[in-house]
């Protein structure tokens, strides 16, 4: 085994252990834990057995094993970006709900009578 393989395998193993740890602490859902564990395990297999990509490349009709990794990583990358965007949108929407709730429900005593429903003075940063 080459030093680069040992280094990469170590990093991927640490990532796998971190994912398992997060799952045990219930910081990620089972589906997410499964997805990420699958990605790290696939990485470990491909780094440890680089010839496996060549076999896969032949099956898929792609020239080199490394090309298979690149081709597969593009759609996976797009998918992950999409999921990230979806999550940001959800957080944004939740933030708006909080801001709306504060605006509609919380009326500062100083604002009563002026019709200003906020505890913040106009012009404040």
């Amino acid at each position: 085994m080459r030093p680069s393989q040992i280094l990469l395998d170590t990093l991927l193993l640490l990532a796998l252990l971190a994912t398992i740890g997060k799952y045990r602490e219930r910081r990620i859902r089972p589906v997410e834990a499964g997805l990420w564990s699958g990605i790290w395990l696939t990485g470990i297999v491909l780094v440890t057995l680089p010839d496996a990509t060549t076999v896969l490349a032949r099956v898929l009709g792609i020239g080199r094993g490394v090309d298979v990794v690149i081709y597969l990583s593009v759609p996976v990358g797009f998918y992950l970006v999409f999921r990230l965007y979806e999550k940001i949108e959800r957080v944004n929407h939740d933030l708006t709900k909080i801001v709306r709730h504060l605006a509609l429900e919380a009326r500062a005593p100083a604002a009563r009578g002026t019709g200003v429903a906020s505890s913040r003075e106009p012009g404040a940063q």
Partner: protein
Amino acid sequence: MDKTAEGWEDAPEIVGAAGVCVVVPAFNEERTIQHVIGELREAGLRRVVVIDDGSQDATALLAALAGAEVVRHVLNRGLGAALGTGIHAALVRGAEVIVTCDADGQHAATDVRRALEPVMNGDADVVLGSRLLGAGHMPWQRRVANRIANVCTRALCGMWTTDSQSGLRVFSRKAAERLELECDGMEVSSVIAGEIARHGLRCVEVPIRSIYTEYSLSKGQSFRVGLRTLRKLLLKKAIGAGR
């Protein structure tokens, strides 16, 4: 706002009695907000709710001094969020008819009153003010951008309007209660069109004039904002399809 086109001597009786509430989303509009509220109130639209969307200037104070009720977002959340808050606030306050109106002074109070009529007469659930049907001098760049926005709105939200990005709209209470505006930004205009189509609401377009000033043009959607709006609509559609 311009009130020279027609009088409104009967405005308080007609408009004030029917529980009409005007929602004005505003972000850093201290230059125009008092004028806009003053013209609306003078036209008989007494109940004005300004949604101050986290302004960092005196918009909220000036709006309150002009006689509007002010609801403040502690953070700037965007046009869609402000409209959502405003419509919710108007419904909670028992409004039977809800008008949305821009804060930059581009709508004439006479047009707001004319736009009210189909909903108040029971002929429509929603009225959209169309700047492209009315006599106006919309700059050609805006005209082109609006046409593109209309096509995108038709393709992505399922409804054709001649001015999908117009800020002047009128909703009956029934229509307003059905709106699900799950968006925060400028895409809300297209989303509203989609909601009208989705719920099969009776919608009519009313020609309105747009009063373009250097200020109102500077506050409008730029080409970059338009592209961002389109991207958000596309992703919203993709997320919706993936659920």
